[in-house]
């Protein structure tokens, strides 16, 4: 199982904070978004894999945590 998280404006866009996804398909971070939402990830969004910044093309495996979010605005 893959845990998928959404933050900030992207959480509003998808209307939820989290998804779960079966890991059998061997998808990239970009492809997971496409699979779950039937649309490309909006431009300018950031992604992380197991709480480290990642590239859209990074592969995701069983047990991983993927997250999608807009540029950070803390501090």
């Amino acid at each position: 199982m893959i845990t998928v998280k959404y933050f900030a404006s992207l959480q509003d866009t998808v209307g939820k904070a989290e998804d779960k996804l079966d890991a059998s398909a061997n998808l990239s971070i970009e492809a997971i978004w496409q699979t779950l939402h039937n649309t490309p990830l909006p431009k300018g969004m950031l992604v992380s894999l197991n709480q480290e910044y990642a590239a859209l093309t990074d592969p995701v495996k069983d047990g991983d945590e993927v997250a999608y979010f807009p540029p950070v605005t803390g501090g």
Partner: protein
Amino acid sequence: MIHILTEPFDPWQVLADYQKTHIDGKHSYGATGVFVGTMRDFNDAHGVQQMELSHYPGMTEKQTEKIINRITDEWDVLDVLVCHRVGVLLPSDPIVMVAVWSHHRVDAFEVSRAVMEKLKSEAPFWKKEVRDNSDKHWVEKNTAGYKGV
């Protein structure tokens, strides 16, 4: 060390307490550099009533520790403390505090500023403004921290 705080904090009280428990008697420091970011009641041309700060629990702490470690590896620093609010903030509430203790002033100045800039560009926090007309509005990006220098 990073503290994520869900309640308002007084940076000067936090510093007094932290210095007593973590610094005095343990370190011979000559310099302390502190930055405090406070919620303003305006942003660009808008009045702002309150702010909702969200974060990515786990990743925030992990990325902040990485920021601190990467920067302190390059400078001669004794300790770094970061406090960051999440939740609902009102104007004049402190949002973030970065404090650095070092032997010499150059390190305190450089590290407090560098940690602050990296926090603003890499730590997963997000601000949502509640404007004077009660519209909620995600802040889209942080402004640059250096100019004309």
